[in-house]
């Protein structure tokens, strides 16, 4: 058996002696042939085990990498598919919403009625288009991260329901009928407010369709992280988000602080001014800006503790319409439902918020 210990320069007898030494056949205290064989077998077994482990590790790593790349490709493909039909406007929905809200948080600039808001037919047609709805308290808007926080809590309510489908009258019974719809939530509420989405749908899920998210997918190296991203992407209501992002109008209400000395109902309803803004998202043109006073004092004792908020919201919607289109016929019967601010103005065309 050839050995690396021998060289070509060695004579055959020396080579033979080296071979004998290597075989452990020599009488020696340090080595016995059996011992050497045992150690050699042990090392061979260890080596085989190491090789198996290494190969396994490499295969596993390679498989993992294949899985990662496959999942990454799948993620990018899904992302591409979902975000392909989104334009710049849609992707900037958050910025536009923030811009519109920021404009409205300062001192009230006075009422404004422009464009479609001047005509009931046009206004109804406008409301029939896709829009985003948001309502929150003024102080919440002004807080740090206010828009996100308000958006996360803001739901479709009686105002939206009654604005899109105004109640027959302003009597409590008629308002309650529409209010019930708003309180039901779920599909019933969605069917009553077709085309309108919560701003939260866009704020929460549109980032999943942005380029930065795609870049993040490209950077991620762990399979678990990619699986989490995939799960997130698949579970996200992207259709809603995209629909919200495609909305033409942004309808948002800002509840000012309740008036001094006014009582609060069980559900938080109180007498306060509400700013109503309707903005064209793409152009940022303000179509409607109104400031109305709401006061739950007219609500019957029976409905007040349960539906005060809903009734006020519904009546506010009805009064807005009336304010816009039948102002002259609007006569409060039991109590002044809405108080016009002194800064009422009417313009022939929509004005820029800025």
């Amino acid at each position: 058996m050839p050995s690396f210990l021998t060289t070509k320069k060695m004579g055959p007898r020396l080579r033979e002696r080296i071979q004998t030494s290597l075989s452990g056949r020599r009488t020696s205290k340090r080595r016995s042939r059996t011992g050497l064989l045992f150690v050699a077998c042990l090392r061979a077994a260890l080596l085989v085990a190491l090789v198996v482990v290494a190969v396994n590790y490499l295969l596993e790593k390679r498989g993992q990498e294949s899985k990662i790349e496959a999942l990454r490709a799948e993620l990018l493909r899904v992302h591409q598919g979902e975000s392909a039909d989104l334009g710049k406007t849609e992707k900037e929905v958050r910025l536009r919403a923030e811009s519109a809200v920021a404009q409205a948080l300062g001192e009230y600039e006075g009422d404004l009625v422009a464009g479609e808001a001047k005509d009931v037919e046009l206004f109804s047609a406008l409301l029939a288009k896709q829009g985003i709805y948001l309502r929150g308290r003024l102080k919440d808007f002004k807080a740090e991260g206010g828009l996100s926080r308000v958006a996360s809590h803001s739901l479709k309510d009686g105002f939206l329901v009654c604005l899109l489908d105004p109640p027959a009258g302003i009597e409590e019974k008629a308002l309650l009928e529409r209010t019930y719809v708003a309180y039901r939530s779920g599909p019933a509420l969605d069917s009553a407010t077709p085309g309108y989405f919560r701003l939260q749908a866009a704020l929460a899920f549109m980032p999943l369709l942005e380029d930065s998210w795609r870049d993040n997918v490209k950077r991620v190296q762990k399979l678990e992280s990619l699986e989490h991203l995939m799960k997130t992407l698949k579970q996200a209501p992207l259709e809603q988000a995209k629909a919200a992002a495609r909305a033409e109008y942004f309808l948002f209400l800002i509840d000012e602080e309740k008036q001094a000395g006014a009582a609060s109902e069980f559900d938080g309803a109180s007498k306060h001014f509400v700013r109503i803004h309707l903005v064209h998202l793409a152009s940022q043109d303000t179509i409607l800006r109104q400031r109305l006073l709401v006061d739950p004092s007219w609500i019957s004792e029976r409905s007040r503790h349960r539906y005060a908020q809903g009734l006020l919201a519904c009546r506010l919607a009805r009064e807005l319409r009336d304010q816009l289109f039948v102002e002259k016929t609007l006569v409060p019967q039991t109590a002044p439902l809405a108080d016009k601010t002194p800064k009422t103005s009417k313009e022939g065309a929509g004005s820029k918020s800025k």
Partner: protein
Amino acid sequence: MQKTTPPPLAIDPSLLVDLLHQVPLLRIDAESTDLAIVIAFSGGTSGGLFQEALDKASIAPSTWDPRAYADDLFLARFVSTCLQADIRGKKPVMMTGHLCKLVGSPPADARSVLLRREILSELDDSQSVRGMFEGLYLALTRLRSLLEGTGSTGTWDSNRRQLDILELFKDMVEKMGAFSSARSELRRLSVFSERVQATESYRALVDLLRYDERLATVSFKMGVGADGRVRRLDLQSVEESTDNQFVGSPVRRWMARLELFARGFKFGEGEVMARLLDAVFEGVRAEFSALVQLLGDLEFYLGALGFIGRSRAAGLEVCFPTMVDPSEELRLFGLFNPLLLGHAMSPVPCDIGLDRIRTTTLITGPNSGGKTRLLQSLAITQLLAQSGLVVPARQAQLAPVPTLVVSLIQESEADQTEGRLGMELMRIRALFERLPPGAMVILDELCSGTNPSEGEEIFELVIRMLEKLSPQAFITTHFLGFAGRLAEKKNIPNLRFLQVALGPSHEPTYQFASGVATTSLASHAAARLGVTGEKLLELIEKNLKASQATS
């Protein structure tokens, strides 16, 4: 008579270096010694390897039986005190047991005696040869220390130790080569050296040592600044010893390590060297057994040289005896007792001369006159002469004898079943049981244990019977009248008489003259030892006074 036969040869005797026998003999147990050497080399404990091998070694065929003289001649003491090597003022610890066997059993082959005398003579004559011889012995003792692990302290790199052993072996082989110009059979060392150096195994050994010492030569050019500091170190060349059969490429060396690891050895350059050492040693291990035997041979001559030096330092002369026919004259001039020399006493040389060697000589004289010392001297002289060594005499003419029987001391033993006469008779019986014709017989105060008249009868009987075996006999006796009558009658052939020569005041001179003493001078001895009438009376009176005082 002891029969000594070398064991079956595991090594070709012609490959041995035997400095003691004309025909080289393998005297050690080759198989067990070889095994012990292998174990010792590999690092196992094999302390006493040389001692054990030589203690168990057989000796060359000899007609002498040490049991007949060793104890009476204090042979072990003589060897340890007189045959002590002296190398440049240092006295190495020698293996006296083996040396005792060698000296105590003169070889039957006269050519071996001659060979020893020639070697010893050359060593004594030539300081340079002696110097080389001593150097060889010292190298061999170092090799012995390394092999037996007696020269090391603490942990030691096993490879380094084995390399040192091989280096010493190489050194020894080279040293042996220097004896090529020797005039005696010391040339055998050179022959051994040449034979070993011609083998493939030795060349492999030399290459391995060179490989260990110089794998490559790296040349640098050093630049030194004005302040004496090294400023530059330029590599000029790297030259590998490519002609060395152990030198391989660096890749090959790495692969060798991996191969060893796969075969169950340790991973490392040390293990590669260990395998190579093992293989190289395997090639030369047979020569190591020869070295074990050689150590005993070297000590034989170094011991003899030590004896010569010691004698000369005491102003005594030694010589190689002339061996002649037993019918010729016995001459021993300047004979001294080496046992006295060993005890730091000053021996007084004497001259002994007889008209023929094969005689029975009766020695008479006063007590403490040197009779017993003379007998010891005569026996040791014969023993050394026939062992091929110098004898304690200025000039000696002797005849070889087939054996020696000495009976000097008869100590009482607790379990002896016979009285003094019985023991004496048993002694005589034992003498004749072992005595071949022509042997040398040394008897001290024969038949001194019984009354003179009966003793004389037995004495005469012994002398007459001895005559039939033609021995060379020396017998001391205090039967002066009887001896005188024998001298007058001359009715026993080959009977000679020596007497202690006395000084003017009858004091012993430790010299011997022909004839029979007329007195044993017992009164002189008694006076010297305080046994006179006056002295004894003084003691009695002293005891009486002491007794009266206590009562």
